């Protein structure tokens, strides 16, 4: 009904997170005297965190369904090393290596999904076992060695879009991508609004919608500008493109499709879902399997970026991914969370990491700050829930970003529409 609202997950919590993210960026931009928002730094930030953000996408679905996955770092490492070895020893082309990695991820996911969904062992246990199992397998297969990957495979983790067309001083493909995204966001926003209004649903007033769209478009265009004007030969990085594609795809799946609804239903109340005809076992199996496939992909992107696969790749990734999901507003008890929220949560952590690093803050202090931020974000949430109030940023943004109170006319308008069974 409302593409933008959907884009942000439509709750005050996430608007709050967006504000927090913007505030952080501005803060570091000032403190670092403009280094934060430079092409080079943004590319670093994206390349250095894409694999965690990809994990967060899978993780939020797992957590919505009421589970957890502790094994993603080990799976990423195991898939990474297997693919590196296969490319080296069997002379596989890069794309065959990628396919092999995804297939291996699927097999691992099916294994874990089987125990979780069909045998009924809590995912915490299954994936704790998997964490040890696949870490061990990584070191067994690789004999604890570091295995390099060829240059064409590195494209996956460190590549850029080619320069094509006339020399405009910008990376042309990045510019095109940016413009296309803006066009898509604007048309979807307006069309969704018009359709909802026709049906008599409550829609935000036009100026609210327009402001929203303008803000989003400006942000996209600014990012486009930064990515398109990096040092020659650079553009929006390949991991970033993969990430954006996955966010759009999974964001759509989770909010707009039947399977997405089923994931929320199972996490919200499994028994009620089953009595409504949802096959909860199948849903649980699929989220676990999907997580492992994405973990495999994340592992391969990381290997591409670091040019080799090693025995300690992926250590602690699960924790970063889980933190991103919870900062992004998911609930430990399941049933709550969004893909976009988790990405924002992950970005908050990434910007924090990056900014503190630029300021020369040590790894120790960075850890402490990140830990406190996680706690604060969730505490804030819990406190607001207990008070029954929206967040502070939510209240500030209420006039701008939330919907209007329901209107009697709108309700009457839907009066005579009767659903029919085809």
């Amino acid at each position, binding site marked *: 009904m409302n593409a933008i609202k959907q884009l942000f997950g439509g709750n005050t919590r996430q608007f709050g997170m967006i504000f927090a993210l913007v505030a952080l960026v501005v803060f570091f931009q000032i403190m670092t005297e403009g280094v934060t928002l430079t092409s080079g730094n943004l590319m670093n930030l994206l390349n250095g965190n894409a694999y965690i953000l990809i994990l967060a996408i899978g993780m939020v679905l797992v957590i919505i369904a009421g589970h957890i996955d502790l094994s993603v770092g080990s799976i990423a490492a195991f898939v990474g090393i297997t693919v590196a070895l296969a490319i080296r020893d069997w002379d596989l082309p890069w794309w065959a290596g990628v396919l092999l990695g995804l297939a291996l991820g699927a097999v691992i996911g099916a294994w874990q999904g089987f125990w979780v969904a069909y045998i009924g062992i809590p995912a915490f246990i299954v994936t704790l076992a998997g964490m040890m199992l696949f870490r061990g397998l990584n070191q067994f297969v690789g004999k604890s060695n570091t295995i390099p990957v060829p240059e064409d495979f590195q494209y996956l983790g460190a590549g850029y879009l080619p320069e094509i067309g006339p020399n405009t001083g910008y990376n042309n493909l990045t510019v095109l991508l940016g413009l296309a995204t803006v066009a898509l966001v604007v048309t979807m926003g307006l069309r969704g609004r018009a359709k909802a209004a026709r049906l008599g649903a409550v829609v935000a007033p036009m100026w609210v919608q327009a402001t929203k769209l303008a803000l989003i478009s400006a942000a996209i265009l600014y990012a486009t500008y930064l990515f398109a004007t990096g040092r020659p030969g650079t553009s929006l990085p390949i991991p970033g493109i993969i990430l954006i594609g996955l966010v759009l795809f999974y964001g759509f799946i989770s909010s707009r*499709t039947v399977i997405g609804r089923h994931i929320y239903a199972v996490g919200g109340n499994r028994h009620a879902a089953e009595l409504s005809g949802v096959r909860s076992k199948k849903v649980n199996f699929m989220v676990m399997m999907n997580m492992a496939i994405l973990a495999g992909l994340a592992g391969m992107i990381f290997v591409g970026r670091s040019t080799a696969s090693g025995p300690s790749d992926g250590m602690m990734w699960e924790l970063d991914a889980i933190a991103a999901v919870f900062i992004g507003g998911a609930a430990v008890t399941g049933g709550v969370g969004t893909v976009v929220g988790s990405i924002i949560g992950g970005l908050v952590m990434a910007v924090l990491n990056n900014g503190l690093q630029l300021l020369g803050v040590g790894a120790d202090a960075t850890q402490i700050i990140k830990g406190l931020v996680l706690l604060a974000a969730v505490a804030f949430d819990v406190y607001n829930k207990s008070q029954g109030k929206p967040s502070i940023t939510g209240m500030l943004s209420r006039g701008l970003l939330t919907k209007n109170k329901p209107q009697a006319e709108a309700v009457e308008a839907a009066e005579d529409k009767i659903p029919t069974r085809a």
Partner: protein
Amino acid sequence: MQTPPTGHQSPLILEMRSITKEFPGVKALADVNLAVRAGEIHAICGENGAGKSTLMKVLSGVYPHGTYTGDIYFQGAVQSFRDINASEQAGIVIIHQELALIPELSIMENIFLGNEPTRFGIIDWAAARVRAMELLARVGLADSPDTPIKEIGVGKQQLVEIAKALNKSVKLLILDEPTAALNESDSQHLLDLIRGLKGKGITSIMISHKLNEIEQVADSITILRDGESIETLDVANDGVNEDRIIKGMVGRTLESRFPDHTPQIGEKFFEVNHWNVAHPQIPDRMVCKDSSFFVRRGEIVGFAGLMGAGRTELARSIFGRSYGKFVSGTITLNGQDIVLRNVAQAIDAGLGYVTEDRKTLGLNLLDDIKATTVAANLKEISPRSIVDRNREFEVAEHYRKTLRTKTPSVEEGVNKLSGGNQQKVVLAKWMFTQPDLLILDEPTRGIDVGAKFEIYGIIQELANQGKGVIVISSELPELLGLSDRIYTIFEGAVTGVVDKSEATPEHLMRLMTSSRVPA
């Protein structure tokens, strides 16, 4: 019914003055006044969503001072409770519409939860046991204090809640729909207990949609309508009866409790034969014993039985084997034998089942109304597996209108609805699956008289469309008023079938309590 001397002349123990409570988009209470005399049983009546539970939550500190406007005077002093503990300190204990006991813990542990008797900081279980026995004796519960809560029925759980309240030296006991989930004899026991407490000087406030009970035990009745206090009736002097209460609640008199209906009964289309199902954990305990029944098109079939007779188990085992272990038996639909292995298959075959336990089995409390309404028939609004949210909105709006669900918008979370309105949303969810056979398990539990009438009308309308309806209910008057034919069930077996024309409460009662299988 003769009641012990009431506190007509006794002083006010509680006065709530111009209480106003708003939720975002809803004014739940507007200038509500409530005056309760010491030692009386004060009933609060009103339609679903009238604000009864909200008023009691204000009183008991669930909604703390400052989140509402108005004053509370309790025992002569202005009170501003910060939380439930504060109101309990003052002697006000609330037993909520949804029970709040911990299923894994024992009766004794639940009674003392948060209030454990200690010696030197260590729980003194010996003292606790003695006290628990005392309290259980007072509420008339014979079970061992070590029995886990999950092993006793709702009726007994209510008694445990009351024992827990008595342990806190309660002066004012608030009961929010205490008998909604109880059968007649358990309800009677509970009402007697409340009356006994009154004899001991404990004042009670009771919310109920069972007006006959209110007429029976209440000394005064305050009526709420749309968040406003309409009137307070004095039962002894004002000649109050059920019709009078209804008039206050809905603002007009209700001519009859059941809509007029001339059944148009067609051919037999759904049949279950020799249905045997075992308990899910205990394979040699049978929960359905060789049960057979059928439903004709356009027919409303009642399932009568005591609580625990196995009606829900029978219904759920048919509904895609969602309960128990299937042993043997056949289901015939439109002359063809079918096998329903899971709920999805049952829904596809045209069955629907509205559960009796909406909180744990019927609703995802995190969802909003529109998502809940379409949850059991997502396919219908999802071409190519993509949910059409405009259709979703339309459908939800349609059912909000037909069932007259009280909510500011279908985008509201179901957790924000009053109990009765949640029930309507669950009904909407199943009506939207357009089932050929709809099984309704206690469909009017917690629903006000006006809405009951509407729901009966909807059930009859479904029947008129040639569908079959099975109604499971513990309220015999409801079954007698609604059903065309009634099966009686006792200990998992069908013990009889009675036509509407021959059905009397006595006859049904006999069949519901005997294992005599009809010839």
